[in-house]
């Protein structure tokens, strides 16, 4: 599904990813854990195609196709979705307008019929209900005045609406209360089962109790330094990063 080979990326001349490899199969859930500043969000931005990051080497393929030359919108249409660590506020742009434009842009690019107002609202209302998002929130400007938890739930709502095949969740669990964490995890789990793959970036084992990963990676200083099964997350929770990062250094 998603393959990252020897990826190197820098910003403002500072190298942040230095030779990162990752291979995520169809239907799999991989988790990435790692200390602050390891480059986890940088990886997610580079995957999504943020232009400020300069990719200096390596390749990323989605279903065998390189996405390196694709714009962010082309990547989204190809099925890549990034749930932001810090969702962006967009004053003056209503959630419903934003969502409808996004859904129909993606559908159009995928050769599907665009949804009319009625079908769109039906889809949106259904997903909102599953994720415990009020209609009122959809009338507000994108993320403006949303609480931390609401922003994260809104990311998962957008993910569900856009029907991606590969999703990156960048600390979608941080800032969520226990109930919201369950709602978000249920939202992700509802999308599992088929071919969809997930890359879950988190600091906490807790999320992985709800979203069971197939593989856990530890990232430090811009590369993957250890890979294991779900037990690796438990080990990290108990011992912290010091041993692993130290051993790799």
């Amino acid at each position: 599904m998603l393959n990252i080979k020897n990826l190197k990326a820098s910003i403002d001349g500072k190298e942040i990813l230095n030779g990162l490899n990752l291979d995520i199969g169809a239907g799999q859930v991989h988790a990435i854990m790692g200390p602050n500043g390891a480059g986890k969000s940088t990886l997610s931005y580079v995957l999504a195609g943020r232009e400020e990051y300069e990719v200096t080497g390596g390749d990323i393929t989605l279903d065998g196709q390189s996405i390196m030359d694709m714009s962010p919108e082309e990547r989204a249409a190809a099925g890549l979705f990034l749930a932001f660590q810090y969702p962006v506020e967009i004053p003056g742009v209503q959630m419903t307008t934003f969502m409808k434009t996004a859904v129909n842009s993606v559908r159009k690019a995928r050769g599907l019929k665009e949804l009319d107002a009625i079908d769109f609202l039906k889809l949106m209302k259904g997903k909102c209900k599953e994720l415990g998002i009020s209609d009122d929130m959809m009338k507000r400007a994108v993320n403006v005045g949303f609480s931390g938890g609401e922003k994260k739930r809104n990311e998962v709502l957008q993910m569900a609406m856009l029907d991606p095949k590969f999703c990156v969740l960048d600390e979608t669990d941080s800032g969520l209360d226990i109930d919201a964490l369950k709602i978000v995890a249920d939202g992700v789990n509802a999308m599992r089962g088929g071919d969809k793959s997930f890359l879950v970036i988190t600091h906490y084992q807790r999320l992985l109790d709800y979203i069971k990963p197939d593989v856990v990676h530890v990232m430090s200083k811009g590369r993957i330094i250890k890979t294991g099964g779900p037990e690796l997350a438990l080990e990290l929770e108990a011992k912290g990063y010091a041993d692993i990062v130290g051993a790799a250094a």
Partner: protein
Amino acid sequence: MSFAFENIPSVKSERWKYSNLQRALKDLSLTPARLGWDGNVSLLSPHAPGAMEYGDTQLWDLNASQTKDIKFITSNDIIDVSAKDGQSLSPRLIIDVKAGENITIIENHNGDGVYWKNAVVQINIEENAIFNHYRTIEESEKGVNTLFTHVKIAKGASYNAFTMVLGDGFVRNQIHAEIMGEGAHCGLAGVNLLASTQHADTTITIEHQAPHGTSNQTYKSVLTDKAHGVFQGKVHVHKVAQKTDGYQLSNALILSPQAEMDTKPELEIYADDVKCSHGATTGKLDDDPLFYMRARGIPEPVARALLIEAFCAQALECIADDVFAQTMREEIAKWLTSRA
């Protein structure tokens, strides 16, 4: 031309610093012409309201001496101020809103080819009346429009103006508003969508001369190509005008490195118990929302258009008439499809 070039304000004069009208008018060969309005020109007094307030520009007097077109208006109307190639026009609108009335007037300013319209609009709003004054200005590439408005607002009355500048050419849109009676309101708003080598100047003076008056200026400018925008807004609160509430906002969005915006807010306050503030910003489109939208599959031009529409929204909210507001939204969408 039938006027002395020395009478054209030069950039040396304080309030014309950013707008080079002499350059815009140079080499234009124009003939005085008329629109065919039928008001009696001999009724125009050289001491008509506004003459004193516009004492610093000869163009007001020039209009008075040259005008062949006068229109007296007291009720809802739609007025076209359209110039033809080669014309020099000096139209004058005299608008009287009777006490307690509520009227709406739409002015459409446009033209073809090379021309200069030196227009004066004189407005008097009597007690407790409401006047909604909507304008679209869409001049041609070589068109020049100098438009001077003077408005007196009586006790409890309300002046609500919205101007949309599109098109091209050179525009000076100057407004001088006088709050004459207690509790009067002056709301000025506008959207300037400027492209090519267009020049659009909005120059405002609001004089609070009575207590409990409110004034509001909400201007949004979007500039691309080599467009040049100017916003000069002055709020003058006289000593008697206690409890005045004045707010001024000018935001500019620069889409091209060659576009330029000059903004000059001014507050002159002589009363001690007032609430006045201003905010002025000039900036580019934010990268973060743009990337966020694109990451959701929204193509860049569509994302930009949504953000620019959102940027203009606050000015459109000042329009009371829903139909006109919708028309303006469509104009913005049209402009965005063709330019941004």
